[in-house]
């Protein structure tokens, strides 16, 4: 029991009237206060444990709101699960609560759910809905719902659709309690439920004899900004939950190799051929687990700044030769995150290599991430590294900072994509951090920018996840745009300042649920700059940045003189040229930009334009012609949609054109021969 004052809310009367409820509340508050002394002496009652079994800290690190105690039995034959869940919730909202919404995420995998409707409309990476197949059916059915002290409220449960009013969507359920839970009091829910997992969709479900169980238990919403925040499961949204403690018992067949969030505390073989494995998690807001008989586990330890971190790398046996590769990138990522942003406090990190061909690749849960590879993955293609780095990065932004992924997806996925660029470039090189094979290279910065540029003007970053124009727009803006916006910001305020700002943000807001303004203000505070001009356009707006070198021109100042006189002056090096450069802001994003004008004699002139007007002209009279003009010569502005028009040379340099034409000619010649081979 913690030293904190704990109030156990006893249910005294099943009274519904307003006045009586007030009296009851006062009475119950008094009763609760009277009980303090009793509790101080160790009286048992519902509470949130203050354990630190799973963290390298002697004190809890988060304000723990929930304690989930789940006992689940997995049926591997039909990929289903029966479980009981005891959820203890402490009302820290500062006001009485009589209504509790719960996520039932697995119900999203039903033909008329909002998730299926939206993914059928906009597409998803997992499945194309040409036809509905029963294997995609998933469900989360509550068999019994009891509130301790209030009795069985199963009949009071009601599906709600707070986002789209789709009455067929059953991904959120709500219970109205007969009496409110006063501030600071605890309430305990006892829930029996049955899960049917789909063949993997949205990184949860089965494939062959593999299972990844994510979003598998009834999870209470978050009281956030004065209201319940419990959105339906949408085609392009993720999750949001309160911090707490998890104790999960999993009963599974004995041949299964299991991995989960948190630390394993026991494993007992049962006479019926099953085993019961118990996990405990502290200061986490979700719990996922996986089983497969084909896992091989590489164990390693990372010496973190707060203590040792046990690394469990669970590889498909087919991919065992890549285990070291997985482990290495995980360690290198951990090192950089600890150096740059803050300590990793958990005692474990489990990296799961999911079943090949499953849609379970690339997902994050607290202390538990999935990678993604294939048995034929070339060494020069760093996709497994990219996925692992990205998912580990979520441990910080989703896992510990824990922003609202439904409403501010960019604050998790986007900030994480930015740190992905920084970390991957640091490990594998700026231009080769995704691919370096056969002379073909690709870097993270280019990848993020490419994601963004196709959807640059469709949506702002600050849009709720399910309200983006398209699935591509969600991805391009949330991941790509945020990354390039922050990369550009880094060049505005300086790399060191940006790193300090990110570290400050992480350390200040970890284990809270910060808002977008918390993040933006932190950057302004640390940098000491008013950056609203940038945030208003880049974060809150849909403005597109595209500057071009529109025209360059040079002619001799004595152009009107006889040709032989001009040639003589040219020969003597006395010819003077009047050159002009026209810079154009093509789109509506206004940003200052540097312009470098290079002359044939090697001289360089650097100009700085505030970009406020639509265009600017620079004119020079020099004894040399312009050799090239380049906007943003240090390549600070990653957000520019078109890099090809950022520079101009007066003469043609056709090497790239001929090179690509040669590639195309070779390819078409070969294809033509191939067709003729079989046809004529």
């Amino acid at each position, binding site marked *: 029991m913690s030293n904190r004052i704990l109030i156990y809310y006893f249910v005294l009367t099943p009274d519904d009237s307003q006045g009586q409820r007030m009296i009851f509340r006062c009475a119950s508050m008094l009763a609760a206060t009277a009980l303090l002394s009793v509790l101080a002496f160790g009286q048992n009652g519902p509470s949130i444990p203050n354990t630190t079994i799973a963290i390298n800290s002697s004190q809890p690190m988060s304000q723990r709101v929930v304690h989930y105690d789940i006992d689940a039995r997995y049926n591997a034959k039909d990929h289903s699960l029966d479980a009981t869940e005891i959820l203890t919730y402490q009302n820290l909202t500062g006001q009485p609560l009589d209504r509790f919404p719960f996520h039932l995420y697995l119900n999203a995998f039903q033909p008329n759910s909002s998730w299926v409707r939206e993914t059928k409309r906009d597409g998803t990476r997992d499945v194309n809905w040409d036809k509905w197949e029963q294997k995609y059916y998933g469900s989360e059915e509550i068999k019994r719902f009891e509130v301790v002290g209030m009795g069985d409220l199963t009949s009071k449960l009601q599906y709600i659709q707070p986002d789209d009013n789709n009455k067929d969507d059953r991904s959120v359920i709500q219970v109205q309690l007969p009496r409110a839970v006063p501030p600071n009091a605890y309430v305990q829910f006892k829930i029996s439920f049955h899960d049917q997992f789909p063949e993997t969709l949205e990184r949860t479900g089965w494939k*062959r*004899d593999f299972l990844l169980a994510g979003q598998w238990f009834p999870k209470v919403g978050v009281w956030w900004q004065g209201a319940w925040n419990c959105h339906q499961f949408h085609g392009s949204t993720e999750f949001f939950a309160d911090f707490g403690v998890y104790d999960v018992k999993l009963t599974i067949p004995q041949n299964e190799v299991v991995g989960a969030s948190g630390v394993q505390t026991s494993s007992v073989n049962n006479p019926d051929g099953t085993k019961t494995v118990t996990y405990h998690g502290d200061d986490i807001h979700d719990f996922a687990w996986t089983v497969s008989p*084909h896992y091989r586990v590489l164990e390693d330890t990372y010496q973190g700044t707060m203590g040792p971190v046990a690394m469990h790398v669970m590889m*498909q046996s*087919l991919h065992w030769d890549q285990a070291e590769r997985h482990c290495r990138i995980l360690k290198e990522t951990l090192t950089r995150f600890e150096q740059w942003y803050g300590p990793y406090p958990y005692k474990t990190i489990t990296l799961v290599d999911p*079943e*090949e*061909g499953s849609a379970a690749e690339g997902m994050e849960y607290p202390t538990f991430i999935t990678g993604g590879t294939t*048995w034929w993955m070339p060494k020069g293609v760093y996709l497994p590294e990219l996925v692992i780095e990205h998912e580990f990065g979520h441990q910080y932004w989703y896992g510990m900072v824990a922003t609202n992924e439904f409403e501010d997806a960019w604050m998790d996925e986007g900030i994480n994509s930015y740190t992905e660029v920084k970390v991957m470039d640091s490990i594998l090189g700026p*231009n080769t951090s*995704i*691919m370096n094979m*056969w*002379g*073909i*290279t*690709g*870097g993270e910065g*280019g*990848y993020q*920018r*490419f994601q963004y*540029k196709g959807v640059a003007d469709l949506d702002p970053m600050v849009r709720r996840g399910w309200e983006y124009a398209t699935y591509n727009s969600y991805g391009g803006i949330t991941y790509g745009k945020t990354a390039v916006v922050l990369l550009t910001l880094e060049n505005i305020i300086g790399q060191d300042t940006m790193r300090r700002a990110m570290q400050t943000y992480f350390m200040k807001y970890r284990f809270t649920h910060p808002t977008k303004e918390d993040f933006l203000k932190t950057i302004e505070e640390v940098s000491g700059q008013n950056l609203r001009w940038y945030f208003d356009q880049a974060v809150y707006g849909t403005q597109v940045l595209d500057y071009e070198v529109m025209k360059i021109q040079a002619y001799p100042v004595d152009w009107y003189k006889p040709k032989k006189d001009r040639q003589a002056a040219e020969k003597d090096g006395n010819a003077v040229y009047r050159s002009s450069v026209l810079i154009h802001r093509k789109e509506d994003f206004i940003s200052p930009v540097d312009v470098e004008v290079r002359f044939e004699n090697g001289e360089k002139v650097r100009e700085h334009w505030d970009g406020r007007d639509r265009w600017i002209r620079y004119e020079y009279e020099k004894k040399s012609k312009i050799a*090239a003009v*380049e906007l943003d010569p240090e390549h600070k502005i990653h957000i520019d949609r078109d*890099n*090809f*028009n*950022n*520079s*101009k*040379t*007066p*003469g*043609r*340099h*056709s*090497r*790239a*054109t*001929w*090179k*690509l*034409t*040669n590639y*195309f*000619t*070779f390819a*078409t*010649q*070969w*294809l*033509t*021969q191939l*067709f*003729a*081979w*079989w*046809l*004529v």
Partner: protein
Amino acid sequence: MNENPGILWPAFHIMARNKRYLVWFYILNLVLSVLGAWALRGALSGVLDNSLYSQKLAHGFDVFVFLDLISRPELAGHAVARPHIYFTWMFIFFSVLFMPGVLDAYSSERRLSREDFWATCGRNLWRFIRLFVINLIIAGVVFAVSSGINGAIGKAADDSPNVKLPFYLQLIGGVIIFLIMTWIRAWFDVAQAHVVVHDESKVRNSIRLAARFVGRSTISLLACYVLIAVFAAVVFLAGLWVWVVLVPPAAVVRAFLVGQIILFLWLAARFWQRACAVAFCATRMSEARRDEIAPAPIVSQAIPPSPAAPEVGPAL
């Protein structure tokens, strides 16, 4: 293979002796492809030639700069691909048009005069168009069905606990499809050779006879074809390796030369296969026909030598 030890190398000599046709076809292929790429070259030039950003493609190959480039509206796929499609069909048409002359030359010991070449081409044009269409139908149907079956097998194996199984099944299926398609290719090559060598106006007769004789010599003829195809594949992969490893990224001319050598040898492989078909037609089909009619010598004149009948060398 052992049944016809004499076909592969004599066929190579036939091809080498008539290398001018190979060279002309190669030039035709190159010119048409260059023409097909001209629209792309113009579009690329407009974007790249005056931009410093193009250096990322000139002195290396940054995949995201390349994607950035090809996602531009002026480089939209259909606009740059359409000319290539037209010129591909032109190459196929010219192949149909000129191939009778090439086969006639292959079946002849002497150098074919220009008039004879064009006469053979003209005489056989319609026959070769019919052969082309029939081949297209048969090969198309067989390919579609076999690919469908292969795909279905792969999909059915998708849930197997052995993750590699679908890949290996698809690979084996692919090899089987390749062998079937190669057999069909050999069949129609022999039919084409038969049409030219015997001046057969009824292409159905040539197709029927070719099917019968190719069927009897399936292993040997298929072995020749497969060996040549393997040679082509090895040359292709080795050439790509040379290109990637030994040619610097900015060396456009060297890259062009390496690429063209690969393509010339690839085309040579196909002409080698055709020479095999001519040699097979000239020897096996004629010998078999003679064997069939041997008891009645008078009938041996039932197959009058055509004006372009091959006088097969001693090795054949």
